[in-house]
């Protein structure tokens, strides 16, 4: 058997805890299985098309996939014009929210007192639904892009904070003893032990944040915006332009999926070791 391709498949941490399994016993995913979700999606879309035609549903209640596809093509310039601000807001919000979360997590790890003081507040703020937070933030930051960026950042913040605190503190105690025997400084323990240990935790949070940041930007646009996929969703709904509504939803989902795929790709390139392998 050719060793190389199996070794590559063995890399993602999804197969964690298979203690030191030799590369040859790595699970192999046949190509036909990778196609399954696409086949299932095609079947569902086809069923939708047929059912909508058979029951003769009016277009404003449930447009058919073909009508939506036509709208996607004909309204593409307009969709793209609205896509750009949403993409920018979610991207900047993602970077901002996660950066602040990582910085706060680092502070918490270095000061238990700070963590005891601020963590409950972070939990409390997190319990406020985003739909309630959004209008407040729009009042503070105005109707421009800033408020959407802040909402997107807010929605990313908590999962990353919680995961990062766990990641930075879930260091194998024996590794800490090893560092002590080596007389490593606090900074060395942080950079050489805590940061790498936290990366798998960080990436699970970033994958969540990649999709929720898009959600945050869209919710922000609902409250008030001239341009953006969120604004377009509201407008299309109010005007009963259902094919346009569905096309807009499709574009925003596609963007979230691409965002998620990029983060997953980065994770696979960076976290090449197996999680949960303590020794």
């Amino acid at each position, binding site marked *: 058997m050719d060793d190389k391709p199996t070794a590559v498949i063995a890399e993602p941490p999804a197969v964690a805890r298979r203690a*030191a399994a030799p*590369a040859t016993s790595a699970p192999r995913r046949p190509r036909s299985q990778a196609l399954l979700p696409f086949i299932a999606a095609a079947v569902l879309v086809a069923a939708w098309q047929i059912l909508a035609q058979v029951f003769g549903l009016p277009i404003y209640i449930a447009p058919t996939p073909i009508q939506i596809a036509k709208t996607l093509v004909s309204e593409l310039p307009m969709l793209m014009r609205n896509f750009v601000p949403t993409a920018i807001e979610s991207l900047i919000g993602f970077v901002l929210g996660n950066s602040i979360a990582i910085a706060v997590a680092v502070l918490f790890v270095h000061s238990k007192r700070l963590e005891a003081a601020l963590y409950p507040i972070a939990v409390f703020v997190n319990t406020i639904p985003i739909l309630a937070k959004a209008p407040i933030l729009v009042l503070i930051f105005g109707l421009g892009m800033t408020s959407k960026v802040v909402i997107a950042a807010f929605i990313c913040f908590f999962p990353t904070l919680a995961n990062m605190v766990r990641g930075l503190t879930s260091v*194998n105690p*024996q*590794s800490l*003893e*090893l*560092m*002590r*025997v*080596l*007389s*490593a*400084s606090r900074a*060395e323990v942080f950079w*050489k*032990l805590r940061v*790498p240990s936290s*990366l798998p935790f960080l990436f699970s949070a970033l994958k969540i944040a990649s999709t929720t940041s898009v959600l945050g930007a869209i919710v922000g646009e609902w409250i008030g915006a001239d341009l953006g996929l969120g604004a377009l969703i509201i407008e299309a709904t109010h005007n009963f332009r259902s094919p346009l509504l569905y096309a807009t939803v499709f574009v925003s989902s596609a963007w979230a999926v691409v965002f998620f795929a990029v983060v997953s790709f980065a994770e696979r390139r960076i*976290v*090449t*070791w*197996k999680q949960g*392998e*303590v*020794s």
Partner: protein
Amino acid sequence: MSGPGATLAVDLDNATVRFTSERGSVTALENVGLKVPPGGFVSLLGPSGCGKSTLLRLVADLVAPTQGTVTVLGGPPERARLNRDLGFVFQDATLLPWRSALENVRLPLEVGPKKRDRGGQRTPEELLRLVGLAGREHALPHELSGGMRQRVAIARALVSEPRILLMDEPFGALDEITRDTLNEELLKIWRETGTTILFVTHSIPEAVFLSERVLVLATNPGRVRELVACELPYPRPLSVRETPEFIRIASHLRALLQTC
């Protein structure tokens, strides 16, 4: 191996360690004395909870004595630790999973005070060859077997050329055959490097096979039962375990352990 009057590698004088928690205090070690000359090989043997690991931790400056003194290479353990005179091998290899075998061996050269001039006579590559891992330098820990990971840990402990090697049941989790091989290799490394070795084990044959002397500890509280000499000439082939002298020492240790 050392002239009279040479500084002892390890000198425990009436060392007592007590751990205090809310539920009361536990005496892990009581009035333990032990003198190990430079280049010596002493095994610590005893039932669970007899303080074998605590004794090792005393020397490594991971635990401080409640009473008594601990002298390592003529000074306090902290000095030995900061001078990087100590190498520690845990029961788990404790490799950093994101680092290759070679990068794990290099770790001691990258951290701690005066790390620049920490490199010893042997490079990390040479040490991996010494422990029989040539060709696996770039493998990640999860791609190595348990025995291979433990070899990496030994190479890592040797990279800063420690004068004392502290080993806490390093082969406890390995199968018999791997253990035999690593025991032989450890003796070879010991004779080549001349380091002092303190070796914690649960295994009587392992203790007799490796060491010059075996310190038997009794439990509750942890204290010295007897210091037994293993007068078998080095180099010791694995077949030494079938000699009458080996069996005599082993059965003496077994009898001692039954009264611990």
